[in-house]
């Protein structure tokens, strides 16, 4: 570990803390449906969209209607992308002349991008045409992110409204977030990425005669426009197979920093927006503090392990940290930081190969996802996932003092707790269930590249990443098979929508409640005790559920590594 590495990590957090309130304020304006300066330019687009689609943006929706409209929109998008991928061979914008994408791969990819997972069973350069990248995939990067933020808004309204029957309008939320937040930021980010060497062209392959006289083919394409939203929307689906490790996606240390900042930017802002929405910004800062404690702990472990390196290789006469799967221009600190950022958020972009991390260095990204990606988390999904844990935490606090728990002025009763547990339980059920199945089925065992405990880690990581809608991988796993494409597709769908629907039900149930003013007996949810309780609940739920699986995978792998055992 170097001082420079720690400066990077703390500068990264410092920049984000400085941006939290401005971004939160902007999000709050969208949450309230207020006019922004951008309305002068994009307002006509917004109203034109509503007119053509027959939408009344002021029509308030019950939680059921909000859920049905959101689901049907996402399902239509899913079918659209499936069609674009299947028809790739006959559609234009295909300079490489690629064939249509196969059935199970199209199924997997369409779900993957709809659910904001962006798991890549395919290698972008060898599978996807320029049109597929733009029309099939980039559009989801915007709309799955907008869906996530809209859902967070809906839950915020559940806490903020009193005796109400509605939680907002899905179309208005999703459209405003797309037009006034995601699109303008992406325009700026795209220009920045292009200036730094990320290609943006409709051309295909360029042939290079290398200095040694060999032939190398380089693939170009509309990379920068995809890159901008890939990170800002915590999607993570790259243009190329290796994602942000590819020099064309992430050419230097500055683009790398901006990519990491983009992943967390909206998530940080939303904590502030939540506080503002419920009338006390300290509620937001308390949530952010709990998230940051978990984040800094994770980064420290991964950075420490990666900088310490692999003792098996040290015995061969090498010194230094673990550089297998890492790029020289980023080095160990920026690669470790990126890996923890991308899995704390539900991004899944990678700038280094997590499969080749040291055993414990790679366990932290895995554990981040198993916690439900509530450490900052995906845009929208992070904060609503975190609020589910907050409900659980006030419930536990209520049990300890023997009072009906309250949170930000709302009584938390049996219905909310049951729904929160239902949503949280989908993670262990699907992750552990599907991992167990794949660890005994022949088609599942054909997947891992590595042998021994690390092979098990590859399977566990895949299902964790799918259910948590992350999309990063221990990429040694051969996942482009009917078994994995199918199961992972189902896992991604369950992990997204089986959390969202109970969450919206909670929003509806909370909105209907009266406001309960804070009294002397209320458990304060802004101080250090609350932050500690939140961190404790998240670690206990995540730890107790997943520790056995981690013991079989990364922990066994670590013990093998320090004792020099190879497989």
């Amino acid at each position, binding site marked *: 570990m170097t001082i420079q590495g720690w400066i990077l990590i703390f500068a990264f957090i410092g920049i984000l803390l400085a941006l939290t309130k401005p971004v939160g304020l902007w999000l709050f304006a969208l949450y309230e449906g207020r006019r922004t300066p951008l309305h002068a330019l994009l307002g006509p687009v917004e109203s034109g969209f509503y007119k053509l689609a027959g939408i009344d943006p002021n029509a308030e929706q019950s939680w059921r209607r909000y859920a049905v409209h959101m689901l049907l929109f996402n399902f*239509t998008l899913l079918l659209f992308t499936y069609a674009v991928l299947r028809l790739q061979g006959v559609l234009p914008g295909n300079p490489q002349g690629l064939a249509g994408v196969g059935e199970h791969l199209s199924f997997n990819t369409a779900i993957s991008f709809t659910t904001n997972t962006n798991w890549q069973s395919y290698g972008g350069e060898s599978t996807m045409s320029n049109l597929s990248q733009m029309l099939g995939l980039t559009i989801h990067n915007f709309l799955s992110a907008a869906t996530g933020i809209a859902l967070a808004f809906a839950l915020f309204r559940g806490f903020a409204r009193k005796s109400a029957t509605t939680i907002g309008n899905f179309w208005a939320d999703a459209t405003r977030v797309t037009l006034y937040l995601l699109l303008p930021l992406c325009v700026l980010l795209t220009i920045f990425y292009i200036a730094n060497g990320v290609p943006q062209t409709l051309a295909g392959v360029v042939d290079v005669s290398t200095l040694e006289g060999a032939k190398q083919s380089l693939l170009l394409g509309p990379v920068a426009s995809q890159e901008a939203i890939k990170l800002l929307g915590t999607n993570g689906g790259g243009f190329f197979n290796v994602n942000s490790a590819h020099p064309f996606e992430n050419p230097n240390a500055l683009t790398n920093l901006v990519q990491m900042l983009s992943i967390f930017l909206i998530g940080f802002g939303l904590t502030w927006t939540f506080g503002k929405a419920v009338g006390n910004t300290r509620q937001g800062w308390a949530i952010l503090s709990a998230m940051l404690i978990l984040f800094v702990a994770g980064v420290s472990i991964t950075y420490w392990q990666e900088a310490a390196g692999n003792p098996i290789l040290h015995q061969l006469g090498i010194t230094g940290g673990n550089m297998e799967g890492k790029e020289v221009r980023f080095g160990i600190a920026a690669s470790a930081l990126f890996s923890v950022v991308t899995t704390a958020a539900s991004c899944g972009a990678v700038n280094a190969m997590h499969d080749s991390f040291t055993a414990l260095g790679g366990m932290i990204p895995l554990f981040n996802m198993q916690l439900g990606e509530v450490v900052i988390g995906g845009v929208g999904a992070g904060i609503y996932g975190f609020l589910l844990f907050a409900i659980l935490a006030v419930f536990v606090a209520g049990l300890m003092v023997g009072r009906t728990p309250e949170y930000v002025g709302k009584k938390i009763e049996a219905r909310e707790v049951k729904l929160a547990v239902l949503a949280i339980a989908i993670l262990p059920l699907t992750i552990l269930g599907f991992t167990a199945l794949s660890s005994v089925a022949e088609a599942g065992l054909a997947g891992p590249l590595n042998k021994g405990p690390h092979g098990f880690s590859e399977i566990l990581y895949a299902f964790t990443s799918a259910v948590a809608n992350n999309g990063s991988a221990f990429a040694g796993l051969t996942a482009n098979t009917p078994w994995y494409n199918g199961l992972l597709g189902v896992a991604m769908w369950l992990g997204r929508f089986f959390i969202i629907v109970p969450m919206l039900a909670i929003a509806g149930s909370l909105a209907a409640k009266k406001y309960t003013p804070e009294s002397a007996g209320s458990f304060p949810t802004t101080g250090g005790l609350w932050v500690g309780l939140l961190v404790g609940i998240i670690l206990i739920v995540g730890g107790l559920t997943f520790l056995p699986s981690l013991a079989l995978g990364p922990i066994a792998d670590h013990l093998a590594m320090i004792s020099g055992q190879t497989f």
Partner: protein
Amino acid sequence: MGNDFTSALRPAIVMTILFAILLGIGYPLAMTGIGQTLFPAQANGSLIRDSGGKVIGSTVVGQAFTSERYFQTRPSAAGDGYDGLASSGSNLGPTAQALTDRVKADVEKRQAEGVTGAVPVDLITASGSGLDPDLSPAAALAQAPRIAKIRGLPETRVRALVAAETKGPMLGFLGEDRVNVLALNQALDRLGAGPAQ
């Protein structure tokens, strides 16, 4: 519930089409127009051309150097090495026998070439992309004696060349000290003793 569903049909279909046009076609094409106008070199891959206009590489992406006359690049798992259409890391885990075997062979090869002491770690590990354009200064300097010998140059001159091509962290704390291997080898060729045969 039924009314919830039917009221969603038209918005779902029309909004999908409208957003597809705006975000899937309008946005990337507008960005392509802006990129091609403002930064044509970068938008087209930061390509390097020789005096005859032939493309010999990109300042951004790495290419394979395996000849003993050049500074060699890191091991690559992209296709047969530095395949621009098949970016990939090795994905070998820390306890993989295949990783140990590969590293052991590379360490022995480097030691046979005259690298003394510890071998710089990036020189014997595969990068994440398989297209890493850089080496650490240590990994370049470790190859200086071999290159000096083959090219008949004083070793101090080769080392000075590495130092001249080394770039520090951006803004003082972003990234690592690094040398772009293609730029370094181009500078090496300019130093005299002609290109590889």
